């Protein structure tokens, strides 16, 4: 576990009080045999109290590493925090001593992992595990903690919770285990719940159960939600704001209504175009050409340039920033949203519109 971290540089000012989480220019790299992986490379975003944010992106884009860095759960080395600050509930947590962080983790900030079996201890009952956590963080007696465990299981809709608390993780089905994970995460009434692909391993009907449950809980508690997924459909249904990651960077951010309906970064456009829909039946799907870049050999300027249908010479020469690209704070990392790219923008948007709605080519 993270014990030592780069000496804190002079910190910036804390964010306003309504901001629960403020991630600033976070850089988490991995030193491995073949070189350095810039897994998270300058990520910034913030989340208001009680609100929800989604992080989407393809496999390897840095979603989990971002979350694990926030929870201070990465081994250093091989991980290395190159830069950044993370403000949570008024305090900077990336550089705080580990003992302090342990008081926050599982308490004010809780995480649901993709594979529930790996994060539940097989030799303790579900109740023991939840109660232990409550006891530690809330400084209550065993009996009160045990009652809280039962209450949390009830909150996530587990029937006969007073009997379920005495069961071991392997005695539960996949969907039930995921509910236990959620119950455990909620047991200390966290201010922030981080869910990393909470339904990816589950069947569609169980996924529906868990998503509805997360929504209900978000309505009933004051907890903020950070949802990591590669499923744009899940994001659309679950969260207020979204950030899209590509090769360790944020390439687009904004409200889901903006980003998923009027995407402005070519990568997001491409993702949405490639989703199979009934309208595209009989035609080919539009596909993003090529594959994600090799992390040891990132394209020098815009990381999406080799795959981008709208790229021009500037894109291979100068790295784009996140530029304002729409109402309600929408930003896109793309030169199309600079004066130099402005003349090209209308055609790119029209092309996206075309690809979005019809299959093309064959039959």
């Amino acid at each position, binding site marked *: 576990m993270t014990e030592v971290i780069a000496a804190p540089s002079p910190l910036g000012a804390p964010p306003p009080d309504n901001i629960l989480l403020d991630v600033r220019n976070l850089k988490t790299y991995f030193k491995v045999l073949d070189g350095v992986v810039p897994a998270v490379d300058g990520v910034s975003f913030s989340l208001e109290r009680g609100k929800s944010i989604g992080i989407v992106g393809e496999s390897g884009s840095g979603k989990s590493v971002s979350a694990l860095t926030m929870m201070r759960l990465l081994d250093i080395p091989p991980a290395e925090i190159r830069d950044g600050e993370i403000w949570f509930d008024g305090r900077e947590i990336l550089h705080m001593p580990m003992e302090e962080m342990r008081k926050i983790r599982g308490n004010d900030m809780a995480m649901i992992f993709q594979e529930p079996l790996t994060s539940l201890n097989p030799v303790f009952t579900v109740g023991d595990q939840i109660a232990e956590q409550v006891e530690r963080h809330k400084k209550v007696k065993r009996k009160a903690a045990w009652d809280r465990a039962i209450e949390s299981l009830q909150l996530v809709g587990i029937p006969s919770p007073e009997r379920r608390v005495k069961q071991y993780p392997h005695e539960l089905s996949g*969907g039930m285990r995921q509910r236990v994970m959620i119950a455990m995460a909620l047991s200390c009434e966290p201010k922030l719940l981080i869910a990393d692909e909470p339904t990816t391993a589950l069947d569609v009907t169980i996924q529906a159960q868990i998503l509805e449950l997360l929504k*209900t809980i978000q309505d009933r508690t004051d907890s903020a939600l950070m949802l990591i997924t590669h499923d744009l*459909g899940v994001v*659309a249904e679950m969260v207020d704001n979204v950030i899209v990651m590509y090769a360790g960077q944020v390439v687009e951010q904004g409200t*889901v*209504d903006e980003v998923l309906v009027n995407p402005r970064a070519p990568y997001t456009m491409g993702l949405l175009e490639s989703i199979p829909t009934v309208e595209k039946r009989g035609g*080919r799907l539009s596909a993003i050409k090529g594959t994600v870049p090799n992390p040891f050999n990132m394209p020098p300027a815009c990381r999406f340039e080799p795959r981008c249908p709208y790229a021009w010479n500037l894109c291979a020469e100068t790295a784009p920033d996140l530029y304002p690209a729409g109402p309600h704070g929408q930003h896109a990392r793309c030169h199309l949203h600079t004066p130099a790219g402005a003349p090209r923008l209308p055609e790119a948007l029209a092309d996206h519109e075309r690809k979005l709605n019809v299959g093309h080519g*064959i039959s």
Partner: protein
Amino acid sequence: MESSTTPVRPDGPPPATPEVVVEGGADVTEMDPLEIARVGAGKTLLQVRGLKKHFPIVGGLLRRQIGTVYAVDGVDFDVNSGETFALVGESGCGKTTLGRSVLRLIEPTAGQITFAGRDISHISADELRPLRRKMQIIFQDPFGSLNPRMPVSDLIGEGLLAQGMKDRKARDKKVEDSLELVGLRREYTRRYPHEFSGGQRQRIGIARALALGPDIVVCDEPVSALDVSIQSQVLNLLLDLRRDLNLTYIFISHNLSVVQYFSDRVGVMYLGRIAELGSVEQLYKDPRHPYTVALLSAIPDPNPRKRKKRLVLKGDVPSPAAPPAGCRFHTRCWLREKLGNPERCVTEEPQLRNFGGGHQTACHFAEEISADTVSSAVETQSVLETAVADPV
């Protein structure tokens, strides 16, 4: 019988697995014309009747059979030449087992399989061999299904060799042709699986299936392990190949959006049986089985302006070793609950019934399903109670 067929490999590590042993020896190219006539487009290419595949559960010190997994338990369907027939359903409902059984990659417990007019349910391995090349499979897992110690030339060439194509040169050429067919470079023959991305590995799996010139290909979750941007590349490839090579697909998937885009007809499976069968239009516009309704309702829509309230099923899928009596779906059925839990669902197993135009549903109360029943079920459900299923 040939002695050893291990080819010399100057460029790679020694093979980890024994080569396929070839019995008999005609070259693939000499085997045409096949005993099997080509089936005209739209005609029945594959007919499956009463198919069952049960797995014994063994246990105890004496390794005695202590139970049975009813993985596929009485399935009927037809696949027409040139169409894509999809099998959908949750994990463990028997899709892979069904797909493998119809190709006789595993031996069915009971039932009849007719391919191009010929009953292949009981023919011997020798009789089956020439048919193998006509019926191929793309495996579920692009990472697990390719032997990591074999170069691409052997991964793809293996099947050709098994079909009797012993000339290394001819085989290598065929391998390169199939790589090109799936959009990979001809030079890749010497590479090993770990040198490829997930999408590329899936393409190798496709090339392997296509090298033999099949008529029908079982595609078992060909895109499930892939990211969306790669998924669309592979789906496009499968579409192009279907058109160019006149292929028929059995397309196994649990992703209903992909199925709606990609297939012509769909069979919805639940616990080893087909719950509903019909064209994509029939099933998606007018689902007649409460399970299909729930599956469709569970699809998250990427358009946030279409946020909807879902119909959420209760509990988990029961074990296929102990399927519920009567209708296998009755323990989770919202329609039955809405109708006041009629006994018939528990006492009598519903059979597929015709709803016109080839649309079939196995539900006693399929007539009760309408937009109104569905929306009123959605309104009255309690999301927090959905975990209920098995007693503790």
